[in-house]
């Protein structure tokens, strides 16, 4: 019953993955139940927390949507995400093409160097960057995040795109050169259309990475109206020591699930990039 490929037989496999799935999803499951609970149900320690001892209610969703700035945070995050995606593409596509095709031997070394920049964590740089942001007059403005987020999306996306571009046969571009186009013309008319899956991947990652970011958003922006979801939800739905748990959990679930779904679709590419497999396309 055991072999290397199968690894384990069916029953233990289901046992293991079920256990891990429960461990992974439990907080979200608990959040999902919480968001529809009445206060008096939730805040009675004797009640079974996983059951609705009182009928479920939508009042906390209403609070979240209409009496907090939640929608504002969502809008801010989407706005920042969209702009960062655009900046990332404009900068990373030419850079990745240059590294993949035009810079020869030192292109790959430089590519790896750029990838390493992705590993420089926000915690190392947020203090000096907060001064840079202040000097530029962008403090408490979401534009500071639009400016800073590409510092981690550009390296990672350049790296991923470099792998994609390398996987496109050189012949096709050279054919376009012979057929009467310039390098840039060949890039726009042959390489880019053939890299659409790669570019889509990069769009998704640039977007989800900005949705995940917390530290810069926390350090640079303290005005409610300019906050992102991650920071807004964790700071604004807490008043002193009072947590609006149902609304908080609702916000967490409503944002987490779509982002997770999006991320999931492209995860294999992400892994290939991290293991430097992207070099081989």
């Amino acid at each position: 019953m055991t072999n290397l490929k199968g690894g384990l037989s069916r029953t233990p496999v289901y046992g293991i993955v079920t256990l891990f799935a429960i461990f992974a999803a439990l907080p979200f499951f608990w959040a999902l139940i919480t968001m529809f609970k009445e206060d008096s149900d939730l805040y009675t320690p004797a009640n079974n927390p996983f059951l609705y001892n009182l009928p479920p209610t939508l009042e906390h969703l209403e609070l979240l949507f209409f009496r907090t700035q939640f929608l504002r945070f969502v809008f801010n995050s989407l706005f920042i995400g969209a702009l960062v995606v655009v900046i990332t593409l404009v900068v990373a596509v030419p850079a990745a093409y240059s590294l993949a095709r035009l810079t020869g031997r030192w292109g790959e070394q430089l590519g790896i160097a750029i990838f390493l920049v992705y590993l420089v964590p926000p915690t190392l740089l947020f203090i000096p960057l907060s001064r840079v942001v202040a000097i530029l007059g962008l403090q408490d403005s979401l534009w500071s995040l639009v400016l800073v987020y590409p510092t981690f999306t550009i390296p990672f996306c350049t790296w991923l795109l470099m792998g994609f571009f390398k996987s496109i046969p050189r012949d096709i571009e050279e054919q376009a050169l012979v057929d009467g186009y310039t390098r840039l013309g060949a890039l726009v008319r042959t390489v880019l259309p053939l890299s659409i899956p790669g570019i889509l991947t990069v769009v998704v990652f640039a977007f989800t990475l900005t949705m995940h970011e917390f530290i810069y958003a926390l350090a640079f922006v303290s005005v409610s109206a300019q906050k992102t979801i991650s920071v807004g939800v964790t700071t604004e739905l807490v008043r002193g020591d009072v947590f609006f748990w149902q609304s908080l959990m609702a916000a967490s679930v409503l944002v987490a699930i779509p982002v997770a779904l999006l991320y999931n679709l492209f995860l294999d590419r992400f892994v290939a990039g991290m293991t430097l497999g992207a070099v081989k396309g």
Partner: protein
Amino acid sequence: MEAMAYRASTRTRIGYILDRETWLGPVMLFPAVLYILVLVGLPFLLAILYSLSDITVGDPSLDFVGLQTIQEVVENPVFQKSLRNTFVFTLVSQALVLVLGKILALALSTEFRGKWIFRFLILLPWTTPIALATISWLWMLDSVFSPIDWMLRAMNLLGPGAPLGPAKNLYWLGKPELAFFSVILVHTWRMLPLATVIMVAGLTSIPQDIKDAVAVDGASFWRALFEITIPLMLPIMAVATLFGVIFTFTDMIVIYVLTRGGPIDTTQVLSTWAFFKGIEGGNLAQGAATALFLFPVLLGVAVLILRFARRAEVA
């Protein structure tokens, strides 16, 4: 006529310059390099300068004080505790991730019905924005309403006369040892999915003929695991762990949301300590100096990643 001919020739000449790869390559690379130099390289230099000064938000002039700031930082007992905690949290959680991830990867590399839904659930901790994921843990570990406590009470393990003590709650984040445990738990929870998917990629990249040869040789599951699978996967397991190390070592979100370093700084780490000092306390010099202590480890890990990743390429 002559003017037109001249214009045509200059246009083509400019066109030809863009055909020169030695020229076009650097031009296309320039914006990315500039962005990184200005917004990563420069701040990094600033961080070093800050740590050699006494700059604060209130007094933003850059007066150099030599190693005085760094000395003050290092002599602070909270810093020493943070440094130790950073290492302990990282090492313990990544050791757990390595073992659990290996088990989970073996399970997930098989084919079974409904795999995608299990995969989706197991990946949730990594794919969710970390601040929102951590806040749901904050609620899981609530001092009064924790559903874990409720389950323990239901099983008569908690409460008056029960083995876990007379109190009705464990106060997960209120007692130093439990807070410590909780932080490690959340870090493990968070990094497990990434390590697992990287290891699954490594498992599936083991050539089929090796798997067939092992099957033909009739090796038992455990022998095959320890003598074939693990040695072959060593580089990729190293890569998975090293990424985990970087993300855990430099993370401040879990601590910031869960315990804010408490109770009484027992779970403080370098990044949160730098944040409280530098941003909330306004002492830019000390904050920057604290954060800089992340760098040597980061550099070492990056070098190791490159070394292992060359041997672990999975397409």
